[in-house]
């Protein structure tokens, strides 16, 4: 609830950063469904992000749809991409084979952004008109904030309901022992598809928010630095933890802003995130949320363990 008061204290620029954090909360919540809950390594997240963003962009520029109407379709495009990325799972492809496949899928997507200038503006990029909600134009960061906050809250609550249910349980069961999960009657291949589709939906919505936030999309926005960004958020926050996604998003999104102030560090995001992940794996495998859970039980969620 305190969050609602933020626009009163922040200037436009900082508000922009907070909005970016909201975008990445969705990105990481979605990513965690596949990596944290289902327990699979996948590189497709940036592909879902980009597809959602470009879907919003294309629908607003080419079909003239107002932005708010493109949010859910962007999610569906992400979900569709999720299905496509996980079709091999229906045939029994697992582990690093699946990871490599998603890597190939992600790179293929990036190649497509550049090679279909008719749709995506190619390397020149796509300029997205100012986002409109029910006829109102969102002209400043504060307005965007309230809209984004609403979307994030709705999506996160819906996601947490699914993850707490038998569906989330099935994901975790598959993560722990897929054979045993199948022996419980869980159709594991279909659940792979479901996890990827859900992930794609959530991340796709994040993508459409990103389009509204930055106003101009180009293929470089969805390159390999994005990939490590996504991994850094969920690792630092805590795999599979919703609270971790929020913490991780805040911390990792703030990092480039902090770096900006140190001349010698400019351009270092890549290796800093790499080192952060290494440190987390060696010393704090369950991420920040596990650390905070020791301090205050509020931060406990299913992955907390001492």
């Amino acid at each position, binding site marked *: 609830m305190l969050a609602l008061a933020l626009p009163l204290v922040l200037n436009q620029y900082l508000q922009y950063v907070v909005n970016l954090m909201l975008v990445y909360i969705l990105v990481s919540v979605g990513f965690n469904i596949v*990596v944290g809950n289902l*327990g*699979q*390594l996948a590189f497709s997240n940036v592909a879902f992000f980009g597809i959602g963003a470009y879907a919003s962009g294309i629908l607003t520029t080419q079909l003239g749809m107002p932005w708010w109407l493109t949010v859910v379709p962007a999610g569906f495009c992400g979900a569709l991409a999720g299905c496509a990325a996980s*079709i*091999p799972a*229906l*045939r*029994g*492809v*697992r*582990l*690093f*084979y699946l*990871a*490599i*496949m998603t*890597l*190939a*899928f992600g*790179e*293929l997507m990036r*190649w497509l952004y550049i*090679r279909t200038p008719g749709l995506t503006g190619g390397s020149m990029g796509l300029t997205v008109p100012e986002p409109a909600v029910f006829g109102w134009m969102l002209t400043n960061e504060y307005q965007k904030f309230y809209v984004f906050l609403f979307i994030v809250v709705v999506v996160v609550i819906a996601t947490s309901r699914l993850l707490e249910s038998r569906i989330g349980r099935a994901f975790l069961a598959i993560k722990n022992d*897929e054979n045993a999960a*199948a022996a419980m009657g869980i*159709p*594991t*291949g279909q659940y792979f598809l479901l996890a990827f589709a859900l992930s794609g939906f959530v991340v796709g919505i994040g993508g459409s928010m990103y389009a509204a936030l930055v106003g101009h999309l180009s293929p470089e926005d969805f390159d*390999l630095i994005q990939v*490590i960004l996504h*991994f850094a958020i969920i*690792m630092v926050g805590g*795999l599979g933890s919703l609270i971790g996604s929020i913490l991780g998003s805040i911390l990792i999104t703030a990092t480039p802003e902090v770096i900006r102030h140190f001349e010698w560090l400019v*351009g*270092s*995001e*890549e*290796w*800093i*995130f*790499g*080192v*952060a*992940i*290494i440190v987390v*794996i*060696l010393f704090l*495998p369950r991420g920040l949320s596990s650390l905070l859970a020791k301090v205050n039980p509020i931060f406990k969620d299913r992955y907390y363990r001492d």
Partner: protein
Amino acid sequence: MIEQIQSVLTNWDAMLPVLPQLVVSGIAIGMLYALIALSMTILYRATTVVNFGHGDLVMLGAYALFILMPMVTFNIAVESSALGLLASFVPPFLVALILSLLVLFAMGYIIHRVFIWPILKGPHLSLALMAIAIGYAVRGVIRKEYGKEVLQMPRPFPEQEFELFNWGGFGTYMTLDEMIFCGVVIVMLLISYIVFSKTRFGRIVQAMFQTQRGSSLVGINVMHYNNLIWGVGCSLGALGGVMLGLALALDPDVGVWTLLRGFAAMTLGGFGSLYGAVIGGLIIGILEKVLGVFISTAFIEITCYLVIILVLLIRPKGLFGQHATLRI
């Protein structure tokens, strides 16, 4: 694309003479893919870790040479006259190369000892993410220090072309670079074969490939040998990286480019198969060139993606691999 395929089929006679050139060039680059896939397979067989950061270590090999070159030339020039005379027989490039391979060997050793070994018993996900993170850390540092502009590798030998044979008015050429690459890789394959089958080290490694636990039970110091194997794998990769650097240019993003082609080769050949990695690499090299000319230049980039996706959908174990899918 359909029109392109149709035009190829109708122009078959006209385009056929180009085929040998494409195959030859394809084999040349395929040799590099093969070497890199081989180095990745060695790491995978030994420690069952798929090193997602390997591409970046390969890239590091090229940059290591680039960085060491000026230091080596400087030093050799300053040596006393007697040593300097001797040194002038040994090209600085070779010295820098050997130093780079040693540096990458050390890196591979340290990476395994410090970052991989402690978490080997944990979830596979952490291992994969550790490898990825190491790759990114390496790439990030390189990009920050040297990535601002496209750099050129120092060339130890001139650019030259040789005509192999002529067919229908089209000559099939091979550059000196390509011949040296093929030569180097063939020599490395022979050395690897001899080391694996004839030396004590090779036999121990083979035992470890079969079963780590069994090996430790008979007294093999698994950690020590894994460290060495990682050193060797990264060195081999670095050699491939240097050659790739000569063939292309120095670019921090070569890492993922390499990784994907390495994976494509391993997937096609069958994960874990040493022969498969080599043959897979050659086939992909040839496919890239042939499809790139006969169908569309797009294939130069996307062949490896398509190979991965299609092989995993149709025959996941590749040519020589073993079970890769779950019965679900």
